């Protein structure tokens, strides 16, 4: 049992960015400072929460002292905290990167005006999005989760439209529609679930969900809604244009964090609430979709002519690995399934952010991102290209990246259960990733004939270092896996007892 006042800290990851977002909206100046302060504060609060959990175990915070089923509660456990940490770390990096991005060549008056307008909307929206993400990872009841999903949708779609180009407007409009459809489907699922069980709290639902038409319908609706938001093949069509046409810092946020949030929720539903009624064939179905996603995304990534589109399709492909964990979950312990997913998510978040930042740098530097004309970038931007290489290696799942650990676990599970085809999928996916990563890499390395006519554009450290650091984190994540495992395995075993202590029906 933990002292009740310590649990108060759980609220801060939601409050901090919310307040910062409002402040950014009110003030025109110093918005970056406010956002940076919130991002740093958020990061340290999350670190502190991890420390608290290691000392006291998983925790809950009841807003206003009301206990479920009446009140709203927030909770933390291992996986949630790691997702929060992922959001906080990537968020901090992207905050710095976005500053560098908007400051780039501010001397050019046209660019300065455009960047000023974009910044004006970017900071409050980004803070609002951060609020939604943190809220989603912390919420403990399914209606609250709907609210956070909506918050994410209504802040992500305008962010995607920020660049103002027709293509991005079209893509973000579609993105908004898809997000809303996904949210509504989810809400419908919530209604069915509430009708059948009469509670909204996740921990209480865990005990109540049994067989029944209402509950199966709820499962289908929730799954479809969240699949749409996670862009699992064949519902991925909206993702590449939306991610590739956004501003670079926005692409980073969308690709690294937003899709992970809906996946996280989906995973919670499948492996906690609905775990008793999930059949092996449905798990296999999800795994098959994941395998399709791995191959389809990779093949599309290989065919792209633009760097950002390539990176976006790579997201479609990498998300597939998260779903391949579904059918193999039957053959690893419960804790390990979470660790597989967490390792993939963490590695992908860091590596993919680094890649989109690199793509952004290349775009700023050359004014385009056509893969065929990336000659000589290596000599002019060595740090950026190095970051790209490291991030690519992590995406391929080479050791010692976190994805390697995840792939190792997936492969062991598939051999232990004699399902060799999953091993083929996993190894084949890595090879395809190698092809699309190094196709771009080899263009970077071409030494242009004659002296380079381009004037050397020097990028600020804010643009160069965040991708490199993120890429290095993703590469060396495997080496700190014992700590990650230790945190993941903190699940709320004592949670129900606490709720009942709080006086429950």
């Amino acid at each position, binding site marked *: 049992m933990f002292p009740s006042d310590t649990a108060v800290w759980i609220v801060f990851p939601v409050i901090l960015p919310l307040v910062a977002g409002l402040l950014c909206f009110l003030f025109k100046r110093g918005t970056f400072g406010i956002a940076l302060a919130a991002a740093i504060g958020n990061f340290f609060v999350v670190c502190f929460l991890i420390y608290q959990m290691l000392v006291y175990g998983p925790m809950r915070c009841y807003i206003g002292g009301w206990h479920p089923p009446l009140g709203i509660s927030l909770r933390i456990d291992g996986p949630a905290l790691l997702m929060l940490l992922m959001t906080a770390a990537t968020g901090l990096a992207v905050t710095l990167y976005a500053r560098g991005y908007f400051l780039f060549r501010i001397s050019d008056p046209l660019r300065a005006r455009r960047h000023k307008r974009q910044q004006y909307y970017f900071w409050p929206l980004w803070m609002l999005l951060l609020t939604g993400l943190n809220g989603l990872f912390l919420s403990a009841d399914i209606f609250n989760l709907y609210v956070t999903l909506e918050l994410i949708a209504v802040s992500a779609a305008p962010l995607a439209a920020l660049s103002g180009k027709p293509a991005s407007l079209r893509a973000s409009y579609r993105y908004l529609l898809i997000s809303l459809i996904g949210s509504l489907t989810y809400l419908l699922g919530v209604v069915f679930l509430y009708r059948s069980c009469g509670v909204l709290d996740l921990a209480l639902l865990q005990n109540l969900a049994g067989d029944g038409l209402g509950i199966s319908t709820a499962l289908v609706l929730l799954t479809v809604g969240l699949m749409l938001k996670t862009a699992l093949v064949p519902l991925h069509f909206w993702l590449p244009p939306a991610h590739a046409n956004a501003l670079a810092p926005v692409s980073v946020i969308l690709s690294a964090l937003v899709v992970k949030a809906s996946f996280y929720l989906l995973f919670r539903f499948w492996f906690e609430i609905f775990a008793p009624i999930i059949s092996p064939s449905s798990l296999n179905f999800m795994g098959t979709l994941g395998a399709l996603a791995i191959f389809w995304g990779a093949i599309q990534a290989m065919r792209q002519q633009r760097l950002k589109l390539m990176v976006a399709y790579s997201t479609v492909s990498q998300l597939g690995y998260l779903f391949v964990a579904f059918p193999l979950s039957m053959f690893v312990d419960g804790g390990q399934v979470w*660790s597989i997913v967490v390792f993939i998510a963490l590695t992908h978040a860091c590596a993919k952010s680094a890649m989109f930042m690199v793509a952004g740098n290349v775009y700023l530097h050359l004014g385009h991102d056509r893969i065929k004309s990336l000659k000589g970038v290596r*000599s002019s931007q*060595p740090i950026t290209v190095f970051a790209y*290489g490291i991030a690519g*290696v992590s995406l*391929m799942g*080479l*050791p*010692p990246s976190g994805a390697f*650990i995840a*792939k*190792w*676990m997936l*492969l*062991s599970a598939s*051999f*232990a259960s004699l399902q060799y085809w999953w*091993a083929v999928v996993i*190894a*084949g996916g*890595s*090879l395809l990733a*190698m*092809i699309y990563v*190094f196709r771009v890499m*080899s263009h970077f*390395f*071409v*030494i242009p004939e004659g002296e380079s006519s381009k004037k050397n554009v020097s990028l600020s450290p804010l643009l160069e270092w965040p991708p490199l650091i993120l890429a290095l984190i993703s590469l060396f994540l*495997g*080496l700190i*896996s*014992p700590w990650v*495992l230790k945190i993941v395995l903190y699940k709320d075993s004592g949670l129900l007892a606490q709720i009942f202590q709080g006086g429950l029906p």
Partner: protein
Amino acid sequence: MNSGQLLLVSILLSSFIPGIIIFCLPEEKHRLRTLLNFCGSIVKISLVLVMNAGIYYGHVFEIRLPLIPGVELLLSGDPLSALFTTLSSVLWLLTTVYAVGYLEDSPNRSHFFGYFSLCVTVTIGIALAGNLVTFLLFYEMLTLATYPLVIHRGTEKSLRAGRNYLMYAFSGGAVFLVAVVWLQAIVGPMDFSASGFSPMYLTSHGSVLTFIFILLIIGVGVKAALVPLHGWLPQAMVAPAPVSALLHAVAVVKAGAFGIVRIVLDVYGAHNLLLMGVLPLLSAVAAFTIIYGSVLALQQDDLKRRLAYSTISQVSYIALGMSMVDQQLAVIGGLVHLVHQGLMKITLFFCAGNLAETLGIHRISEMRGVARRMPLTMAAFSIAALGMIGIPPTVGFVSKWYLGLGSLAGGNWWLLVVLVVSSLLNAWYFLPILIYAWFDKQQGPWPEELYVGRFETRLMLLVPPLVTAFIVMAAGLVANAQISPLAWVRFIVRGYTL
């Protein structure tokens, strides 16, 4: 962390830290860069010698880093890893000297030397790996560290070669990963040990284990350039000469061969392999590669390509020795060839680089009478070439002698025939070069004479091949002495019950 662990880590860091610093150095600071390189390699050699002494007197060097249950990184120094680390660190020093001379005034040197140091770090990591996971980690990293070196020139051709290299190497890596996980799913986590896994698994999973063995050999066979997995190697010849020297003698090809040694001796173990009966298959592949590589080498006019095919052929001697794992003499021959082939091949590549760099000679037909212009280079070349053919007292003779004795002792007559035929083929493709160079007259001017000075070529290009050629002779002459590679290999083999 005790002193032994500190030693292992510093052996790795002695090339890693200079590499990282070199990346950050500005291009024009070449003096500082050269100094860093030399300091690093001399420190590394000293540390490796200390470790060798420790291993000889039975000290245990081991450092473990657990990742997830059943997966841990393990660096350990055993006699076998000492053999490979010594080879790599000594040849790194010589290649660095050579590369400094070779790349004088060429662009992107800090980039080159940075990856060069990383490449050596990773090779040492492969040597020190104490289990398959660690081996896999460094094996994949080796591909990454060598890729920028292969495409260093940045031309269309080198990029194509690089792409091909990556396809081969990563496909091999993927197969290897699958095989490693599969093996662990059956026999559980294991370190490299002199006995291999317990034979009881063979009764329950015999055929699967055989299949995994084949997968593992395919995985490392890509880098060891076993036919038909050799396609990347001749193409990778577009790289600068020091890179080719390093790839062929120490790093990539040797890492593959070393992997075969580890899998045969330390993962499966002789008794399991004999029970499984897959060794004739490995013999056949190795024998075919030996003959096929030599036949293709015969047809090349380009000097570096001929040497490349010769590498394919020669490295398979190591695999051949491993395929007769029940014969102690054959194992000795195969293991000692790991060192001997490295010494001879690096000499040959140094000399080929000298010819290209000094006189613009790339083809064998252009080499007529070149020995008068560059007598020392050609003397070194000749010693190494004679070694490749297997003429006493060079080291090449020692390897072939032990392999031959081993095949006779095991009753494998046909392998002796392979050895003899291969020696004849070696003679066939090396002797004409020597005859051209020494006894023919110069025909017209050299293709492109780039250097005229006091010596026949730059001193930094001349010294390394002379040193390695000297070792090729000396290590053959004193093969029975306490400090020869052969003596160390005998020490290694004593640890196994063969």
